[in-house]
């Protein structure tokens, strides 16, 4: 399918490019380390990664201001959490089921969400969080706040009823919400040819939603598309659906050898690896790629160290916190990464 290339030229500074590369590498390297820890039995349950899809979570989140809500990054979107500033040691403690600041061991794998950074963690039921993101956008609009909500979902998730209820609702109320369709050609073992007869992007106009398709392995293209969608959202022009075309390069989870995936498809996409591609761009922009990689690896080593020393959660806490007692803690805010925000920093918006 034809992809629209939204040029990021002029939008991104050298620091932006260094930052984008840093988080692309961080996601890749954290997940590689996670896979090893899982194989060593240090991570219980299951392990999921987003290899090959790093540019989507990273590029999209880079375009958000701190007051915008992420609801929710899914299992291919660790990069969104990292760009948002989620503590690396907490990520590993969470993976390992140790006591941690994200879920205290109540959640696992990529079911991460730091509410203090304006992130609402995912639920497994796909794509339930899309509807919740629409609700956040509804609240932002009701309070006339300059913020939007962004949600991710896969090609497979588009088949469920909640996808439709969210699309129709967002269009009807013309809400500031950004829908990111991560089309990675697969839903577990199911190819998109067994998921839909026509790519769901073609339905957007039928709801009254602006849509575009971008190269999901081009972090700057993803950034630019989300940047544009955010401007539309804040200008009161309503929701945007962005299809990011990509490929799931690993199995559905660590347990899945993905032998059902055609080799040539994987080869085709291996040649379009988002990190290799961006390393070139960043290098040309003067970024010392190897230095960044070394720095990130050192951070990861330190984080894993801390995680391995962390205690397991106290069993006595297993039954606490089902209900909220007292005043709810508000959803917090994240950093505004894009250099373009420097001019207008994200102040806490009136709530």
């Amino acid at each position, binding site marked *: 399918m034809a992809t629209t290339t939204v040029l990021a030229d002029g939008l991104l500074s050298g620091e932006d490019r260094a930052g984008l590369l840093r988080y692309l590498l961080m996601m890749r390297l954290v997940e590689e380390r996670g896979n090893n820890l899982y194989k060593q039995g240090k991570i219980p349950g299951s392990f999921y990664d987003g290899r090959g899809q790093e540019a989507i979570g990273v590029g999209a989140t880079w375009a958000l201001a701190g007051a915008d*809500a992420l*609801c929710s990054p899914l299992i291919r979107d660790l990069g969104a959490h990292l760009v948002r500033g989620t503590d690396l040691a907490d990520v590993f403690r969470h993976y390992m089921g140790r006591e941690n600041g*994200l*879920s205290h061991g*109540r*959640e696992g794998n990529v*079911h991460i*969400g730091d*509410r203090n950074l304006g992130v*609402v*963690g995912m*639920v*497994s*039921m796909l794509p*339930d*969080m899309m*509807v*919740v*993101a*629409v*609700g*956040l*956008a*509804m*609240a*932002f609009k*009701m309070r006339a706040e300059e913020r939007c*909500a962004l949600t991710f979902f896969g090609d497979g998730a588009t088949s469920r*009823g*909640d996808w439709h*209820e*969210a699309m*129709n*609702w967002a269009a*009807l109320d013309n809400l500031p919400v950004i829908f990111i369709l991560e089309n990675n050609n697969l839903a577990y073992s199911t190819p998109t040819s067994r998921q839909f007869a026509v790519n769901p992007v073609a339905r957007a106009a039928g709801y009254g939603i602006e849509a575009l398709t971008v190269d999901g392995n081009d972090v700057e293209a993803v950034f630019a598309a989300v940047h544009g969608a955010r401007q539309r959202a804040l200008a009161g022009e309503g929701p945007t659906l962005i299809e990011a075309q990509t490929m799931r390069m690993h199995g559905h989870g660590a347990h899945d050898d993905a032998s059902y995936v055609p080799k040539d498809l994987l080869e085709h996409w291996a040649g379009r690896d988002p990190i290799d591609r961006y390393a070139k761009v960043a290098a040309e922009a003067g970024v010392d790629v190897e230095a960044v990689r070394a720095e990130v690896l050192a951070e990861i080593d330190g984080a894993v160290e801390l995680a391995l020393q962390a205690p397991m959660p106290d069993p006595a806490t297993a039954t606490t*916190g*089902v*209900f*909220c*007692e*007292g*005043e*709810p*803690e*508000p*959803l917090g805010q994240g950093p505004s990464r894009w250099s373009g925000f420097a001019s207008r920093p994200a102040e806490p918006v009136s*709530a």
Partner: protein
Amino acid sequence: MATLTYLEAISDGLREMLRDDERVFVMGEDVGAFGGAFKVTAGMVEEFGPERVRDTPIAESGIVGTAVGAAVAGLRPVCEMQFADFVACGFDQIVNVAGKMHYRLGLAVPIVVRLPSGGGFGGGPFHSQNPESWFMQAPGLKVVAPATPEDAKGALIAAIQDPNPVIYLEHKNLYRRIKGEVPEGIYETPWKARVAREGSDLTVVAYGQMVHTALAAAEQIDASIEVVDLRSLVPLDEEAILASVAKTSKALVLDEANQTCAAGAQVAALIADRGFEDLDGPVRRLATPDVPIPFSPPLEAAVLPGVEQVKEACLELLDY
């Protein structure tokens, strides 16, 4: 204190909260200019405007899911299901998203889902259900089922002010049938049972419409019947139930819901465990048998527990 119907009391509580707290808003199908299928929100869009009294598409999952998002953003949504029966279409968002969010991530979800529930007026299989126990079984949800106008208002206010998701059951067959004194202003009904009628020979545990059925039956029995109105199903006021059984040593548990795994099963199991030593007889239950609610009046009357059946069950237990 004004005398209001059960329905007017619900409207009054909702209006008070809309006036008192700008974070509160109501949404559902036809709740705006039409005032809702049962007129609970009549006049509200005129007073509070369409932003706070929102007509929605026919999308129960959308209603609950967007409410969760709005609540996480700091608002206090009150969702109306047009009939309780349609909550099955928003079930997943309630049990998997709303109910587990605080435990998993520390994010509170202060939403209220209003369920016009129950039978007794020829509503048939899809407009008569009592789905409370589905939500009692799912962790993280509070469940209330007021029986009187005073509690209908106070429990709704308590539900809206609670930081957790609350399933609020309002019985359609009490809407216009039951009147009572209702305090002015804002007050909260405690999440506790109340003794609706003092007695010493037998305890009847009930909630919602069945409280009135129990009271009517008690009037016709010449023995001292205590009627415990649960009011809140989650949290369940176990001490109040056990205290009454300790006093009477006999218990009949009523449900209008289908009997298997109903709220009454939980109450009876509680009494059989922690109240066992106080019992002078079996823990009896009376509920709607496990059938869809039929439309035709004689059939519906044959399945819903009525005053006569409650009387019989009480007399039999008193003779035990």
